[in-house]
């Protein structure tokens, strides 16, 4: 059962789905939902900037009393027809909200009629009451192998599908993805990331030919993995959380390249170049590192990635990590286990909590000097006289374009920003 949440950090399933769809190049979402759903799911928490194709101006059936009482399927039909006439897209995604799914409009049936006529359109059930942003993200991902990927023309040896990072929910998802792509490209690996750098329907179609999936989440997209395996015989390599800093990134590079049988000479060369690059810069700050006991609050991938970097590469002391995703109990052990590679004795406690008040109580009990968290944590940092650093949603009043903390280079950006926050 979903608990009550004070000041949530995530949108609903519909919000998660629209973030994902809007990040696919030339994909067009169509809402069959209440009149406010477009604005509610495209502003505020989890939406730092609308840089996408439709910029938040999304077609919607805007279900008022008439549609609730008499059914809204005709209204949806008009909305789809209008969208196809006015808006130019490569794929159209009909997303149903709470109202539509409660009253039971057969959106799936209607959309299938269009699809049968050869129109590139799919339906995804994304009622808000089904869960948080991650839930919506997963339902979009599931559609890729199920409905959108091509039949598969054969394995492309050095092509991978990259998923597990949630667009918009992870604050720096776009920049984070770009650095990972940069490193993989350097190793001769082509990446279908679907959601950034103008990637889109072409990459989704081609995903059936990949040699490997890379899933950066310890708990998301398990259904997607299964579908790729059963339909296209593609295995998945897991790296739990964002690879940030030389230690984690090198482990990531080794893991991926082993699976793909990449020439180990090339791998060694790339690792040495990249590590040389960052450690060259690190040499300038040997005397400047301040060591702090820290707590970190945010989505699974960001918390895992930044904690690893701070501990394994940057000599900070991990005290508490609060995961704010709606993680099912059955998945918590795999996230806990992901912290096992922390070096040096750490007394890290891991919590799963979404409620702002409860998170505050957790933080009050810790012996900490800095809080890495959302903008919400600024208030408690102020109360506890600790430093505050914004790494997770919500990030109030910020524009985030391609900033990223992943990989080798991202760690430099993180160090710069942390120093400034101090």
């Amino acid at each position: 059962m979903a608990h009550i949440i004070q000041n949530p950090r995530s949108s609903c399933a519909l919000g998660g789905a629209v973030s994902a769809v809007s990040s696919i190049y030339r994909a067009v979402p169509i809402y069959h939902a209440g009149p406010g759903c477009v604005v509610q799911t495209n502003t505020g928490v989890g939406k730092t900037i609308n840089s996408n194709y439709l910029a938040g101006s999304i077609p919607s059936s805007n279900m008022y009393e008439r549609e609730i009482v008499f059914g809204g399927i005709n209204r949806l039909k008009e909305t789809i027809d209008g969208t196809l006439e006015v808006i130019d897209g490569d794929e159209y995604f009909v997303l149903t909200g709470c109202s539509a799914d409660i009253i039971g409009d057969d959106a799936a049936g209607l959309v299938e009629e269009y699809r049968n006529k050869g129109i590139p359109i799919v339906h995804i059930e994304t009622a808000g009451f089904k869960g948080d942003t991650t839930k919506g993200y997963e339902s979009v991902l599931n559609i890729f192998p199920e409905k959108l990927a091509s039949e598969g023309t054969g394995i492309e040896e050095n092509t991978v599908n990259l998923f597990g990072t949630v667009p918009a929910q992870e604050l720096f998802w776009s920049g984070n993805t770009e650095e990972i792509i940069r490193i993989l490209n350097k190793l001769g690996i082509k990446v279908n990331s679907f959601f950034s750098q103008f990637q889109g329907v072409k990459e989704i179609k081609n995903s059936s030919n990949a040699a490997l999936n890379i899933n950066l989440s310890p708990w998301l997209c398990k259904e997607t993995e299964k579908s790729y395996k059963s339909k296209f015989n593609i295995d998945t390599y897991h790296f739990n959380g964002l690879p940030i800093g030389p230690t984690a990134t090198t482990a990531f590079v080794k893991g991926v390249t082993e699976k793909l049988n990449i020439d180990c000479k090339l791998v060694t060369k790339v690792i040495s170049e990249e590590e040389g690059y960052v450690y060259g810069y690190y040499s300038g700050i040997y005397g400047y590192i301040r060591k702090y006991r820290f707590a970190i609050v945010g989505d699974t991938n960001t918390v895992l990635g930044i904690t690893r970097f701070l501990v394994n590469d940057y000599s900070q002391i991990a005290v508490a990590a609060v995961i704010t995703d709606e993680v099912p109990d059955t998945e918590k052990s795999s996230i806990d286990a992901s912290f096992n590679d922390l070096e040096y004795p750490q007394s890290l406690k891991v919590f799963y909590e979404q409620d702002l008040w409860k998170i505050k109580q957790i933080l009050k009990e810790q012996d900490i000097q800095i809080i890495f968290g959302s903008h919400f944590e600024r208030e408690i940092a102020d109360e506890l006289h600790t430093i505050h650093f914004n790494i997770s949603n919500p990030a109030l009043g910020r524009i985030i374009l391609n900033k990223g903390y992943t990989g080798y280079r991202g760690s430099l950006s993180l160090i710069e920003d942390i120093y400034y926050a101090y």
Partner: protein
Amino acid sequence: MSSIVTVSREDREKIVLNHADKSSEISKKYKQGCLKNLSRSFELGVQCQEMNAIACLLTMSDAAFVIHSPLGCVGCVGMFNTLYHVGQFQAGVKHIKNAKYILTNIDENDVINGGEKKLADALIETEKRYSPNVIFVLTSCTSGIIGDDVDAVVENIQKEVKATVVPIHCEGFKSKLPATGFEAAFNAIKHYILKGHRPIREEGLINLFAPTSVGIQDQKEIKRLLEHLGLHVNYVPFYSNVEKIKNIPSAIASASICEVFADEFMQWLKSEYDIPYTITCMPLGVRNTDQWLRGIAKLVGKVEQVEEYIEQEHKRILPKIEEVRNILKGKRVIVSAGTARGFAAAALIEDYGLELIGLRVRNLEEAVEERVGELVDIYGDDFFFDISFGQTHEQVNYVKKLKPDLFIGNNVQVAKLGIPTEHVLDPIRPTMGYDGILYIGKKLVNAIQNPGFIKKAAQHAELPYHKGWYNQNPYKYHSVIGGE
């Protein structure tokens, strides 16, 4: 217990939600009462009244909020919380607080079995955590469709909690005009907080009603203006508290920051407490600020003082406006904003010698009837007049044809056309009063003087519409409600 039913604003007399035509046609037909309300067979997502209800109250410092909805229905609150932070910062608050909003997080189980128990739990929890003076409970489409009896839950819980628990019925599907959410909030204040409370009159106190979109900078300017008339302001409900709300009946007069906010509530204050009120316009631009101030002065018997003050302010700012006018003169402009702000912003045209070629406002209603005629008198009878909200594709279509030098409004897709844009809906920077007009002037000059970013970006911009769309009538999906 019977629920408070808020009459949707769209059911009022003379409401027009959608229409577009030459200004002369709109003006003539609206005056005659024969301007048809149109609907669309295809439209973009809009906004729901729940947002307005929350926006109206979120900044009350001793309030907490329980929102009876699934996760997504507080997306907007994240945005309003940002503004709340900025507001506190600008007001000099040292320890900035988050707004306190607790979501019942309706899930699939609640949809099937009802969410009343969870709502009750959330209320108890809110009291336990914060002991707020008031807890506002907001409903959603989902809580409405599944039929949770929110009033009954509130009535029961009220026996257990000290805070005044106030249900606000603002289900999104119930109104096409989000401003109805303001009414729902004021109705709740009326029945649950004021409920016959009769404080003593306080000399010189005036109620000033303003929504969240009016930022602290504007609040400061408005206070400054009214202090010159010897008035002190009870600024509600934005950045107020229960005490200030309870103090509403002790004022000698009421005014609103615009024609369409708290209008019904001020009427009620008149009939219930005999507090006179004035409805003029939004104090944006010189003419409007003058008119707005005069309206209040008349109400409180300061007619002579106000003329003196206006003259003094004109002396101060008109030369500065003249400097800006020299730069902006003759530029062809489209103004796009909410109802009151749209009309008010059109008055900037006069201050800065701009040429109004298009105006988009959210809706027409009785409160702005005079303004419609007035605009045509001042700016001519053939500017393009669009009554709509959020229909980006229609706007891009006509803006591309009209080719303005400057677009005053918020529309990313219009900016992609390479047209410099600036906006007057600015809860962070000043917009109102005499100082506000100078600030806006600078913003417009900045937009015109160096449009390099948008001109260059437009060469790379991708608009999402089919090429054929631009050759079509932007209103091809309009139809007359109920047929001709």
